Protein backbone atom coordinates (compact mmCIF):
# COMPACT_ATOMS: atom_id res chain seq x y z
CA UNK A 1 0.00 0.00 0.00
CA UNK A 2 1.27 3.44 -0.91
CA UNK A 3 1.61 5.75 2.06
CA UNK A 4 0.84 8.92 0.08
CA UNK A 5 -2.36 7.32 -1.25
CA UNK A 6 -3.34 6.30 2.27
CA UNK A 7 -2.63 9.85 3.44
CA UNK A 8 -4.93 11.36 0.82
CA UNK A 9 -7.77 8.89 1.26
CA UNK A 10 -7.76 9.12 5.06
CA UNK A 11 -7.40 12.89 5.01
CA UNK A 12 -10.53 13.31 2.90
CA UNK A 13 -12.67 10.90 4.89
CA UNK A 14 -11.51 12.04 8.33
CA UNK A 15 -11.70 15.78 7.65
CA UNK A 16 -15.36 15.30 6.79
CA UNK A 17 -15.76 13.84 10.26
CA UNK A 18 -13.98 16.80 11.83
CA UNK A 19 -10.61 15.12 12.45
CA UNK A 20 -7.47 16.63 11.00
CA UNK A 21 -4.00 15.20 10.53
CA UNK A 22 -1.06 16.59 12.47
CA UNK A 23 0.34 19.56 10.55
CA UNK A 24 3.77 17.86 10.57
CA UNK A 25 3.40 15.72 7.45
CA UNK A 26 6.61 13.76 8.02
CA UNK A 27 5.27 12.74 11.46
CA UNK A 28 1.96 11.68 9.89
CA UNK A 29 3.66 9.67 7.13
CA UNK A 30 5.77 7.87 9.71
CA UNK A 31 2.64 6.86 11.63
CA UNK A 32 0.82 5.86 8.45
CA UNK A 33 3.81 3.70 7.45
CA UNK A 34 3.58 2.08 10.87
CA UNK A 35 -0.12 1.42 10.27
CA UNK A 36 0.73 -0.25 6.96
CA UNK A 37 3.40 -2.30 8.75
CA UNK A 38 0.86 -3.35 11.38
CA UNK A 39 -1.58 -4.34 8.65
CA UNK A 40 1.13 -6.63 7.25
CA UNK A 41 1.98 -7.95 10.70
CA UNK A 42 -1.45 -8.48 12.18
CA UNK A 43 -3.86 -8.19 9.27
CA UNK A 44 -5.43 -4.96 10.53
CA UNK A 45 -4.40 -1.36 11.06
CA UNK A 46 -3.92 -1.26 14.77
CA UNK A 47 -2.66 1.80 16.69
CA UNK A 48 1.14 2.09 16.29
CA UNK A 49 1.45 3.66 19.77
CA UNK A 50 -0.03 0.68 21.61
CA UNK A 51 0.98 -2.92 21.95
CA UNK A 52 -1.38 -5.08 19.90
CA UNK A 53 -2.28 -8.56 21.09
CA UNK A 54 -2.61 -9.91 17.58
CA UNK A 55 -6.21 -10.92 18.30
CA UNK A 56 -8.48 -8.69 16.26
CA UNK A 57 -11.38 -8.96 18.72
CA UNK A 58 -9.18 -8.02 21.69
CA UNK A 59 -7.64 -5.16 19.70
CA UNK A 60 -10.94 -3.89 18.34
CA UNK A 61 -10.92 -0.71 20.46
CA UNK A 62 -7.45 0.26 19.20
CA UNK A 63 -8.03 -0.19 15.48
CA UNK A 64 -7.08 3.17 14.00
CA UNK A 65 -8.92 5.49 14.43
CA UNK A 66 -9.37 4.11 17.93
CA UNK A 67 -12.45 4.52 20.09
CA UNK A 68 -10.46 6.81 22.39
CA UNK A 69 -9.84 9.39 19.65
CA UNK A 70 -13.14 11.16 20.19
CA UNK A 71 -12.80 11.74 23.96
CA UNK A 72 -9.07 12.53 23.63
CA UNK A 73 -9.60 15.12 20.90
CA UNK A 74 -12.44 16.61 22.93
CA UNK A 75 -10.37 16.81 26.10
CA UNK A 76 -6.83 17.43 24.83
CA UNK A 77 -7.15 18.48 21.18
CA UNK A 78 -5.42 15.44 19.72
CA UNK A 79 -5.50 11.66 19.82
CA UNK A 80 -3.07 9.62 21.91
CA UNK A 81 -0.60 9.22 19.02
CA UNK A 82 -0.81 12.80 17.83
CA UNK A 83 -1.98 11.61 14.43
CA UNK A 84 -5.45 13.19 14.45
CA UNK A 85 -6.83 16.22 16.18
CA UNK A 86 -9.26 19.07 15.98
CA UNK A 87 -9.12 21.86 13.41
CA UNK A 88 -7.97 24.27 16.15
CA UNK A 89 -5.18 21.89 17.17
CA UNK A 90 -3.95 21.62 13.60
CA UNK A 91 -3.98 25.40 13.36
CA UNK A 92 -1.68 25.51 16.38
CA UNK A 93 -4.31 27.07 18.66
CA UNK A 94 -4.28 24.19 21.15
CA UNK A 95 -1.13 23.39 23.02
CA UNK A 96 -0.93 19.65 23.61
CA UNK A 97 1.93 18.55 25.71
CA UNK A 98 0.96 15.01 26.48
CA UNK A 99 -2.14 12.87 26.00
CA UNK A 100 -2.31 10.18 28.67
CA UNK A 101 -3.33 6.61 27.87
CA UNK A 102 -7.09 6.37 28.26
CA UNK A 103 -7.43 2.68 27.40
CA UNK A 104 -8.29 0.76 30.57
CA UNK A 105 -5.51 -1.71 31.44
CA UNK A 106 -7.99 -4.58 31.63
CA UNK A 107 -8.73 -4.08 27.93
CA UNK A 108 -5.23 -5.11 27.02
CA UNK A 109 -5.33 -8.51 25.41
CA UNK A 110 -1.97 -9.61 26.75
Amino acid at each position, binding site marked *: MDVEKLFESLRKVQELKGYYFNKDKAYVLELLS*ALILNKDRYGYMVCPCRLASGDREADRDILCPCVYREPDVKEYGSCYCGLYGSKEWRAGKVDVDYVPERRPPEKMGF
Partner: protein
Amino acid sequence: MTDKPVKLYTLSTCSHCKSTKKFLNECTVQYEFVEVDLLEGEERKAILEDIKKLNPRCSFPTLIIGDEVIVGFKEKKIKEALGL
Protein backbone atom coordinates in the same frame (compact mmCIF):
# COMPACT_ATOMS: atom_id res chain seq x y z
CA MET B 1 25.09 14.50 33.42
CA THR B 2 23.59 11.56 35.23
CA ASP B 3 25.35 8.38 36.18
CA LYS B 4 22.01 6.72 36.95
CA PRO B 5 21.08 3.72 34.81
CA VAL B 6 18.66 4.62 32.03
CA LYS B 7 16.33 2.02 30.58
CA LEU B 8 13.66 2.50 27.95
CA TYR B 9 10.76 0.25 26.95
CA THR B 10 9.40 1.11 23.52
CA LEU B 11 7.38 -0.06 20.55
CA SER B 12 9.20 0.02 17.22
CA THR B 13 6.19 1.72 15.58
CA CYS B 14 5.34 4.34 18.20
CA SER B 15 5.91 8.03 17.46
CA HIS B 16 6.41 9.08 21.09
CA CYS B 17 8.93 6.28 21.55
CA LYS B 18 10.89 7.53 18.55
CA SER B 19 10.81 11.08 19.91
CA THR B 20 12.09 9.85 23.28
CA LYS B 21 14.98 7.95 21.69
CA LYS B 22 15.87 10.92 19.52
CA PHE B 23 15.86 13.16 22.58
CA LEU B 24 18.05 10.80 24.63
CA ASN B 25 20.44 10.52 21.69
CA GLU B 26 20.63 14.30 21.44
CA CYS B 27 21.41 14.44 25.15
CA THR B 28 24.17 11.87 24.47
CA VAL B 29 22.80 9.69 27.24
CA GLN B 30 23.75 6.03 27.31
CA TYR B 31 20.65 3.87 27.64
CA GLU B 32 19.38 0.39 27.19
CA PHE B 33 16.17 -0.16 25.27
CA VAL B 34 13.78 -2.97 24.50
CA GLU B 35 11.35 -2.89 21.57
CA VAL B 36 8.57 -4.88 23.12
CA ASP B 37 6.47 -5.38 19.97
CA LEU B 38 9.38 -7.25 18.41
CA LEU B 39 9.54 -9.77 21.26
CA GLU B 40 7.57 -12.98 21.20
CA GLY B 41 6.21 -15.61 23.55
CA GLU B 42 7.74 -16.04 26.99
CA GLU B 43 10.27 -13.28 26.48
CA ARG B 44 7.52 -10.76 25.75
CA LYS B 45 5.44 -12.01 28.69
CA ALA B 46 8.32 -11.64 31.12
CA ILE B 47 9.15 -8.11 29.95
CA LEU B 48 5.49 -7.08 30.16
CA GLU B 49 5.36 -8.27 33.76
CA ASP B 50 8.39 -6.08 34.51
CA ILE B 51 6.79 -3.06 32.83
CA LYS B 52 3.46 -3.54 34.62
CA LYS B 53 5.23 -3.27 37.95
CA LEU B 54 6.62 0.12 36.91
CA ASN B 55 3.66 1.35 34.87
CA PRO B 56 0.40 -0.58 35.45
CA ARG B 57 -1.08 0.83 32.23
CA CYS B 58 1.77 -0.76 30.37
CA SER B 59 1.95 2.10 27.91
CA PHE B 60 4.91 3.20 25.82
CA PRO B 61 7.43 4.69 26.10
CA THR B 62 8.17 3.75 29.70
CA LEU B 63 11.46 5.27 30.72
CA ILE B 64 13.36 4.50 33.91
CA ILE B 65 16.03 6.90 35.06
CA GLY B 66 17.51 5.65 38.32
CA ASP B 67 14.43 5.14 40.53
CA GLU B 68 12.21 7.43 38.54
CA VAL B 69 9.63 6.13 36.08
CA ILE B 70 8.54 8.48 33.29
CA VAL B 71 5.59 7.39 31.17
CA GLY B 72 5.24 9.05 27.77
CA PHE B 73 7.58 11.49 26.07
CA LYS B 74 7.92 14.25 28.67
CA GLU B 75 10.94 16.28 27.74
CA LYS B 76 10.99 18.50 30.83
CA LYS B 77 10.71 15.58 33.26
CA ILE B 78 13.39 13.64 31.43
CA LYS B 79 15.77 16.59 31.59
CA GLU B 80 15.13 17.01 35.30
CA ALA B 81 15.68 13.33 36.00
CA LEU B 82 18.91 13.41 34.02
CA GLY B 83 20.04 16.51 35.86
CA LEU B 84 20.31 18.58 32.67
